[in-house]
């Protein structure tokens, strides 16, 4: 297996677990407070990184700007997804809709970074998005008698 794929699958597994832990959290506290403690945990993780790892500095300004922007975009995205759910959007529709985000990344990466996808990878990207949407559709509740 290619190394990048191993790390991508590790991210998939870790984020997949957060789907359950986040639900366990928001069943007990508001999504805003849950998000707040999510952010505090990110700070704690960063403190641990500073203690354990030896970060390599001396970065180009563009790299620094993109890393900081990554945090801001990711955090804001989480916040807007909560707002979508709180603004009357059905969870099954909102979550399915936001599952389309990798399609935008694909388009931006092809157009701006000139990445190239093989035919198989293009089919895989479309299949992945379809799968993510299908996975977000919860089983309907049984009809009442």
């Amino acid at each position, binding site marked *: *297996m*290619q190394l990048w794929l191993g*790390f*991508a*699958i*590790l*991210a998939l597994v870790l984020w*997949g677990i*957060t*789907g359950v832990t986040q639900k366990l959290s928001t069943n007990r*506290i*508001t999504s805003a*407070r849950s*998000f*707040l*403690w*999510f*952010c*505090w*945990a990110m*700070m*704690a*993780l960063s403190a641990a990184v*500073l203690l354990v790892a*030896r970060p390599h500095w001396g*970065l180009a300004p563009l790299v620094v700007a*993109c*890393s*900081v*922007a*990554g*945090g*801001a975009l*990711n*955090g*804001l*995205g989480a916040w807007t*997804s909560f*707002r*979508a759910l709180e603004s009357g959007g059905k969870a099954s529709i909102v979550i399915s809709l936001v*599952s389309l*985000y*990798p399609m*935008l*990344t694909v388009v931006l*990466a092809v157009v*701006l*970074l000139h990445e190239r996808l093989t035919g*198989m*990878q293009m*089919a*895989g990207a479309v299949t*992945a*998005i379809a*799968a*993510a*949407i*299908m996975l*977000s559709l919860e*089983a309907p509740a049984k009809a009442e008698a």
Partner: protein
Amino acid sequence: MTGENRPRKLPLWLFWSLATIALWGAWGLVSKVASAGADPYVNQLLFTAGIIPLLVFVGLTVRKQEPAGKAQSAEARERRGQGIRWAFFTGILGGLGNMAFFQALVKGGNASVVAPVTALFPMVTVVLALVFLKERLGRVQWMGLGLAFVAIYLLSA
């Protein structure tokens, strides 16, 4: 133009959903650009710096909506504590996931491939929810689970 023919306003939930797509879609792109120079540790530090303004904003909002000092029963306090612990654990796992995502980009994965692979994380969530939360999976979710494996195979080709 009559009132009936006037275009409807974009529903608020749809606006926030589209904003989410734009923000997360752009996040994949900027992460790939950052991966050309930063390692996952430095990225985690800078990524957290990017979250701080939002942390302050949400913190102030929560303080306004849920003023401290309100008397709570022991049961409510315990429930709140559990919720906070799960949220904190979510943040640690989410951060480690971010580092793995970033390392996938550093190790040569294209953003156009890594983003769709990692977006399949609900496949793990639904399996865990099935096993630990005893949730039922619908037929469409089972099909989605199968399709997710096909997608990973195709994307890694």
